[in-house]
């Protein structure tokens, strides 16, 4: 198969599915729609695997816009390939928006991640939404939006230019909005979806500003041109030299502002502090969609964005990378602390997602172009993106199974489930071990590399914070694990009509697939071959000192969790009673939401909006009403002009001609 001929279908097929399922929702039963959607996405997934496989292991070529033939690999280095690049809208000579398909190691890796997780979620949802869809056409709607999301996410990672990325970025936001608000009759879901949309849109505003500033100076949207030759185009456009930071605006280098604004867009989607507030609430959506969107794919869009523009960041704005790594480290620790106090199992996972994405951000932040050691962070970040997508999706899907049985998200309704749900128990355990960083599970490798990258590049303080976070992570994950599966068996189970049990194969199969991927990750062809900042091969140093510490810290965290939560006892309560204010402060997510509400309500609504509203009501509306009044009255007062009298028509005609002649000649 020719890559160029099958590539468009990767985007077109999910789009067609969205339109088709959306339009025919009332024609088919929910299950039929689900089957159609799953089969169609299965085809997309096969195409994705084929393309990624050809890219990494095969050999093929495309002809680029200059007429040269580009192969996927020259020697050990993978090339960036533009499979197709269609001119979509030509606003002016320079402002042309393309829609294309861009293949490089990280987008090929993302193809695999999106295809795998999305396909598994399609399959899983068949079982889950059957019970939790609540109404038949709801399931069709769910699958339609799932297709829309897959389309948008694939378009985002395959974007050839930053504007295409922005378009799909917003589409991803919309589909996330639709899925969070799936249960539109629940007030909590409605407010959560609005919150997610508004917060991410607010961050996207900065993204757009960043895009406009960057492309206005660089005169292009194309990633290829922006990144080429160590971001030379950007350096020249902003007049950056070794001595000066180039064009300044309000005392700051403009390039710093532009790239930081772009990062803020990514921070919104990737839930970095202080934009993280939407993600925990987003758990109101159906659990499988949380696994897809809010754990594995959409929330890493910000990481992907920074990685995509990594040469620009590394050469033109290294200070922004510094800022990214400090923001990331703070977010990681902050989210981990909050996760300790949460009682809703999906919220715990949400905060752990925030914390783990922050790990990826930190790894990118400490990385620079230079030698293998400084570039390690990039690879580590991408590796963690991959492993985290797999095990976190698995953990969410396990949660789905548990919620399915217990009909509650609260930890206190659970306990002792291991007897009833053996498969879920094992998978959840594997996920916890992976996220805690216990060898040989996947998380161990990626997290170890991130810590090594921090340590080796001289970010010692950040290294310490990240190691502490790793300890907290293993503690809160095992607190969750023990509380759900051990602790004390809930007496209600025995009397329940349907005892908790493992689910049917549609819901178990994805768990097993992810579990296999997590356990046997070490058999994977190495990430160091290709998915690196230079797209070539690099050594992955194993610093046994750092690995040892991280394992020890993780085991300590598990140990504490075991003591406190394995069997029901009073110790956790006693500890919490010692400092009730602190506990409730952390439980309330350190009041960050309240601070945001405070700012928006009292300042933005109270001061800015009120005055603008006054101006709008009295001046603009007044003027408009006046115009409308004039229009209306003219309209009614000129009724007689149209009399239906032909003589008069002709008279007007001839007078018109004469008047025009008179005006034109004299």
């Amino acid at each position, binding site marked *: 198969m020719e890559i160029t001929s099958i590539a468009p279908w990767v985007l077109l097929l999910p789009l067609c599915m969205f339109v088709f399922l959306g339009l025919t929702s009332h024609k088919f039963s929910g299950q039929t729609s689900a089957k159609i959607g799953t089969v169609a996405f299965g085809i997309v997934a096969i195409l994705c695997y084929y393309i990624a496989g050809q890219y990494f292991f095969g050999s093929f070529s495309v002809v680029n816009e200059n007429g040269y033939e580009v192969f996927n690999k020259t020697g050990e280095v993978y090339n960036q390939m533009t499979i197709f690049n269609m001119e979509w809208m030509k606003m002016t000579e320079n402002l042309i928006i393309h829609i294309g398909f861009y293949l490089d190691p990280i987008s090929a890796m993302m193809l695999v991640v999106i295809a795998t997780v999305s396909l598994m979620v399609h399959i899983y949802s068949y079982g889950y939404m059957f019970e939790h869809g609540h109404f038949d056409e709801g399931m069709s709607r769910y699958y339609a939006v799932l297709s829309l999301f897959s389309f948008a996410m694939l378009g985002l990672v395959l974007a050839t230019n930053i504007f295409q990325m922005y378009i799909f970025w917003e589409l991803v936001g919309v589909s996330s909005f639709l899925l969070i608000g799936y249960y539109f009759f629940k007030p909590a879901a409605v407010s959560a979806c609005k919150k997610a949309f508004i917060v991410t849109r607010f961050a996207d505003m900065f993204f757009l500003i960043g895009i406009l500033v960057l492309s206005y100076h660089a005169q292009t949207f194309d990633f290829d041109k922006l990144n080429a030759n160590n971001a030379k185009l950007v350096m020249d456009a902003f007049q950056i030299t070794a001595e000066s930071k180039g064009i300044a605006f309000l005392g700051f280098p403009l390039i710093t502002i532009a790239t930081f604004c772009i990062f803020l867009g990514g921070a919104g989607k990737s839930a970095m502090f202080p934009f993280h507030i939407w993600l925990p609430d987003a758990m109101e959506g159906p659990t499988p969609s949380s696994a897809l969107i809010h754990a594995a794919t959409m929330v890493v869009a910000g990481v992907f964005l920074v990685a995509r523009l990594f040469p620009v960041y590394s050469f033109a704005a290294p200070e922004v990378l510094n800022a990214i790594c400090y923001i990331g480290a703070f977010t990681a620790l902050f989210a981990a602390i909050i996760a300790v106090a949460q009682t809703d199992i999906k919220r715990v996972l949400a905060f752990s997602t925030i914390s783990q994405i922050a790990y990826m951000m930190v790894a990118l932040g400490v990385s620079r172009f230079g030698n293998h050691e400084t570039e390690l962070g990039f690879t580590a970040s991408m590796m963690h993106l991959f492993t985290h997508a797999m095990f976190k999706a698995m953990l969410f899907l396990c949660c789905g199974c548990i919620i399915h049985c217990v009909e509650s998200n609260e930890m206190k309704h659970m306990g002792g489930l291991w007897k009833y749900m053996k498969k879920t128990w094992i998978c959840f355990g594997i996920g916890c071990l992976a996220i805690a960083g216990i060898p040989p599970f996947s998380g161990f490798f990626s997290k170890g590399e991130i810590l090594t990258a921090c340590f080796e590049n001289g970010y010692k303080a950040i290294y310490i914070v990240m190691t502490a976070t790793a300890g907290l992570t293993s503690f809160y994950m095992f607190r969750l694990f023990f509380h759900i599966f051990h602790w004390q068996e809930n007496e209600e189970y025995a009397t329940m009509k349907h005892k908790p049990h493992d689910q049917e194969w549609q819901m178990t199969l994805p768990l097993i697939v992810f579990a296999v991927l997590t356990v046997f990750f070490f058999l994977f062809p190495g990430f160091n071959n290709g998915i690196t900042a230079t797209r070539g091969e690099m050594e992955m140093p194993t610093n046994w000192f750092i690995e040892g510490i991280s394992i020890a810290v993780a085991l300590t965290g598990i140990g504490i969790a075991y003591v406190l939560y394995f069997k029901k006892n009073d110790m956790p309560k006693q500890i919490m009673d010692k400092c009730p204010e602190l506990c409730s402060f952390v439980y309330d997510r350190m009041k960050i939401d309240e601070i945001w509400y405070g700012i928006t309500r009292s300042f933005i609504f109270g001061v800015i909006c009120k005055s603008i509203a006054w101006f709008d009501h009295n001046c603009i509306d007044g003027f408009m009403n006046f115009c409308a009044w004039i229009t209306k009255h003219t309209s009614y007062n000129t009724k007689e002009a149209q009399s239906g009298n*032909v003589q008069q028509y002709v008279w*007007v*005609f001839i007078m*018109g001609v004469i008047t025009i002649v008179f005006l*034109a000649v004299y």
Partner: protein
Amino acid sequence: MDYSQFLLMTPEVTLALALIVLLVADLVMGNDKSKQYFQTLALVVFGIHTIYNFIQGEISGQQEAFSGMYLTSNIHVFVKNMLNVGTLLVLIFSIEWNKKENSNHIAEFYLLMMSTLFGMYLMVSSGDFLLFYLGLETASIPMATLVALNKKRNESAEAAAKYILTAGFSSAVMLFGISLIYGSCGGSLYFCDVVKSFAATPVQIMAMIFFMAGVAFKISLVPFHLWTADTYQGAPTSVTAYLSVMSKGAAAFAFMIVMWKAFTVSNVAETVWHNILWWIIVITITVGNIFAIRQKNLKRFLAFSSISQAGYVMLGLMSGTSMGMGSMVYYLLVYLFTNLAAFGVISNIEDKCGKVGMDDYDGLYETNPKMAVVMMLAMFSLGGIPPFAGFFSKFFIFASAAQAGEYLLVFIALANTIISLFYYLLVVKAMFINKSNNPIAPFKSDNASLVGLTICTIAMLVLGLISPVYEQLLAWSFGVN
């Protein structure tokens, strides 16, 4: 004589053939029994003509035949194809009406319709004032018969009378203008000769304005528009649709060709007609809008809306660049599908229950949701709301005028779109929000109309998003000189 020049006239030749075939068929199908197949036959013949012309290859550059009497190029052919598609849609919408109300005159309906189309072809392709005039008359005289086709209704006869009277008057004025051009421009009526000797002397200006008035009558620009509302209201709905889209579109395109080729020496901004047209556009858009606001009859309402739309179309003339031509043809293309969708809904409802008042549409969404949605899309597209096609067509035509420096004009046109949005939304409000005690009963429309409406709806939704259409038009277009 070089007979190969006829090859350039493929659309005219095939249409003439189709006409002859149908004329003979009508004579042969004497009895009532075989008459019922005439409609199918006519549609098939016209369909073949449409498809055959659609699949013709591209023409290289601008070509002329008969020493400049007949001009053609890709954009000419595109306009003709567009007219074909539009006519086909009108024919599809009127199948049901023909069967029920017009069963005695089916053949006349088709033959007259195609004769007018033939006239429009000549008008579009003319390179000479005489051919232009012949085309115009061929297009308008059968049109009057079409307007009067509904013999049992007085309104229809009244509309036709008004139309033929004013049309006769306007063509008299126009002929007078042409004769003055002939006299003052060195005794030739070829556009390429006229432009050489056009020096803007008072007589020549007067001649030009007389000519412009005649064409402006066809496009219904203010102050030559007064016949529009009465004729639109009285004519059978499918004829109204045809008048408002095809007749107007062909005349507008031909008008542009004549003004650019015959009256423009170097660039548009320096010509005499520039300022005249500037004012005509402003007045047309404004008057069309202001009168549309208080209309209660939907056909009358669309008449005024089409007057103001004609003003927007004229913006394409102001730049004199290929972008102006491309955006104008694109505008006409979008307008064709949008307006036909609106008329399709109206004629469907009129066929089923005879209602055309805006009040009758109250609560339409409750009873006929699909019709209401199509009508809503058409109104949004006419009003220029993104992402429907109408937004893009307005955007491009405004952009072309703005590029030529007509900022004030574009601003006035923009301000007028707000007024137009108001009355377009009135229709949407009636259908979706207003409650009615006596709503239009649910009905199932015939398959042909459904096909037509589906085509129009798809076109409204996707035409703006498929950029190659506009890019291709732009590539085919040409500017002054």
